[in-house]
């Protein structure tokens, strides 16, 4: 069952009621049952694989040994690779268990933390099962850690009206972002990216920009719904997004976008790689070639490269994702490598980091780099990505013809103008809301009631619920 299915609100209401009505000693067990039911409703076929992961991991990590870790890694990575990456011709999986990328990483994170002695293994398999299957986060994350979630999930929670309001407000924001903003952008983006050759530079640029907003609104909206729901239950989920498009540098962006995934890679791949002997020798070797470089910077090069390529592939088995990973590998390596020089350059230029124009410049530059990355991320093939790049940089035009063409992917013929106006207003609204949040402007909290009413109205009147039946086809 997806968060946007019509039955989801009912499911949630029932779950919340059950959670607070059962005797406290049954509370977390009820939550486990609810989570497993939720997961089965998506497709009962997925459940066995989740259970295999839970049961084997729990067993093998009870002693926290290297052998146990190896077994856990093999089983979980094996399942993940089998389902998500069709590597063996003839053995391709037709189904992909819901959330497998996410719960596998939660599982591996738990196993690695146990092995490294960061946490003690949980003896009770049901408590562990709840950690992995907890329904607000199983579909799309956040990738919770045992440290953050383990105790919370089994502690007793009592109904609190304040939390209901806070959580409800957050859920509303999530639905608004997902159904109104992401919903409206999706058709445009899908239309253009499915045949980029048919469109000129202006339309392509618009599609890339729209995708940046769509992805953010969709993903962070989903997180908002999950976090709001969890808040009502009294459980805090880790944040996954912190207004990432307001970042001033790419490293900062990656501290604010899909935070739990990047923290996972940092803790379980970057840091371990960095400390290996192999990396030490590798960076010592680099030092011979670049004697003036900072040791620390050199130590990051190999780990950054590996982490970013892996991050790319985590998203899917496609050359475009690999290209995207490579894109950020290069940027992060360059950024890290030049950090020392840039510091000196800025001192010389008397660079005032608090200057408004500089902040705006840096933010726009970062957003632009992210958008270029999205071309790889969203394109349906490397050829498409290359074509889009080429057109954008060689064919830019603001002619009336180009503007007219950019309205076509809205899909509703001459009514595209109205849709474009509404969309502009919505995106502007979202931008202002987040800007005020970024500045910690208290006007947002003072006008919460008004905003809630506005979002309800907007979602009801302008939301896209399911595939539009009403789109123009050129007849």
């Amino acid at each position: 069952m997806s968060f946007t299915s019509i039955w989801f609100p009912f499911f949630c209401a029932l779950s919340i009621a059950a959670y607070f009505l059962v005797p406290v000693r049954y509370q977390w067990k009820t939550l486990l049952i609810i989570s497993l039911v939720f997961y089965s409703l998506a497709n009962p076929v997925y459940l066995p694989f989740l259970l295999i992961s839970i049961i084997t991991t729990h067993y093998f990590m009870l002693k926290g040994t290297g052998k146990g870790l190896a077994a856990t890694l093999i089983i979980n990575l094996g399942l993940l690779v089998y389902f998500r990456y069709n590597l063996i011709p003839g053995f391709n999986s037709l189904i992909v268990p819901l959330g497998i990328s996410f719960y596998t990483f939660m599982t591996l994170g738990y196993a690695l933390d146990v092995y490294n002695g960061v946490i003690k293994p949980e003896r009770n398999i049901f408590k562990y099962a709840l950690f992995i299957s907890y329904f607000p986060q199983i579909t799309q994350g956040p990738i919770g850690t045992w440290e953050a979630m383990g105790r919370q999930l089994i502690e007793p929670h009592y109904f609190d009206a304040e939390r209901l309001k806070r959580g409800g407000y957050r859920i509303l924001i999530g639905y608004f972002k997902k159904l109104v903003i992401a919903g409206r952008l999706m058709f445009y983006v899908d239309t253009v990216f499915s045949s980029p050759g048919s469109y000129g530079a202006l339309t392509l640029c618009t599609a890339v920009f729209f995708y940046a907003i769509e992805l953010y609104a969709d993903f962070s909206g989903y997180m908002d719904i999950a976090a709001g729901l969890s808040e009502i239950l009294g459980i805090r989920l880790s944040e996954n997004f912190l207004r990432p498009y307001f970042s001033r540098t790419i490293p900062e962006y990656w501290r604010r976008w899909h935070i739990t995934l990047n923290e996972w890679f940092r803790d379980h791949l970057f840091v371990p790689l960095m400390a290996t002997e192999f990396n030490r020798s590798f960076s010592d070797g680099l030092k011979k070639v670049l004697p003036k470089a900072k040791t620390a910077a050199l130590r990051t090069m190999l780990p950054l490269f590996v982490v970013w390529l892996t991050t790319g592939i985590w998203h899917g088995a496609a050359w475009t994702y690999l290209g995207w990973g490579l894109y950020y590998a290069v940027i992060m390596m360059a950024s890290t490598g030049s950090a020392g020089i840039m510091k000196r350059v800025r001192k010389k230029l008397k660079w005032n980091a608090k200057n408004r124009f500089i902040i705006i410049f840096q933010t726009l530059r970062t957003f632009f780099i992210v958008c270029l990355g999205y071309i790889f991320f969203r394109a349906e093939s490397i050829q498409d990505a290359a074509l889009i790049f080429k057109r954008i940089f060689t064919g830019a035009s603001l002619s009336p013809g180009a503007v007219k063409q950019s309205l076509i992917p809205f899909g509703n013929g001459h009514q595209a103008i109205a849709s474009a106006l509404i969309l502009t207003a919505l995106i502007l609204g979202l931008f202002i809301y987040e800007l005020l949040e970024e500045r910690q402007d208290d006007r947002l909290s003072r006008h919460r009631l008004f905003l809630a009413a506005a979002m309800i109205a907007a979602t009801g009147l302008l939301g896209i619920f399911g595939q539009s039946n009403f789109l123009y086809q050129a007849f």
Partner: protein
Amino acid sequence: MKKAFISIAAGLAVIAAFVIFKNIFSCYLPAKNRGIQTVIRQGDLELLFLGSSTFRCNIDMPLVDEAYDGRDYDIAYAGNQPVATVPEYEELRAGGNSYGLMVFDLNPMLLSQAVKISDARVIWDLTFPSKLRLWKGMKDSEETDLSTFYEFFVTSGMDDLITYPITEPFYLTRYYKGAKTEETPASSREYLENESFDISKEKVNESQRAAVAALVRRCREDGQRFVFIETPHYYRLADDPKYRQLKSVFVKTLEDEGVDEYILAEDIEMDNRNSEFFEDMTHFSAAGRREYTRLLLEYLKDQSPSSSID
């Protein structure tokens, strides 16, 4: 807690207000150069087109004005399907005016379309009872579900309603008597030769086919003179076997109802290989529009002794 409920209630009230306005009153919002309600206000007419975007782009109304003394109009909705055309016709009838000749769209590709509303303006222009009839027609085709219902009665046309003060003045400059006035340039031959078109659905949708027959019967009952016309398509589309197949089904449907009043593309001597006339496979450039309209008007004059052309 109380404040939260007030907030929720306020949001829902706004939704309700817009929904009620859209469904019951939107048809009274002025749209002076197009749409069913505007046509009803024109009174009796000699010639009335009722069709899809082919009629919007391919008929030159100033030329029609010359031939019919200005007693003419064009109602064109993008993707206007046969299923929708029936309630539209009934709405016009309910307006109480008489129309010398009604021209319907012989657009074969609409026959295979799933039942839906492509142009939210259709819903906008119908009075509430007609909307319900249209909805019933859609529901009877069994292709609707909860999200279609919601879209029909709540979200469709909402963008236009909200932006009405800004977009309406713009639309007023684009149309004359329901048809496009823009000097659309022809697309390049290269574009026309390579533009892909997709007649992926060749299977006739029975609901659409039945609606064509129903429209014919209604006209007969009302004694309404009518003719179906197929505006020429670029030869690549016109010669496509799937297209021809759909076209023959359409023609057969008409003939089964005893209709011989139809004008196919080949009845009009317009060169559908001339790229100067086309913007895409189905829509003319301004030059094509004028050429076709001229030829069509001549054809109508020759065919019909009772027309008011001198």
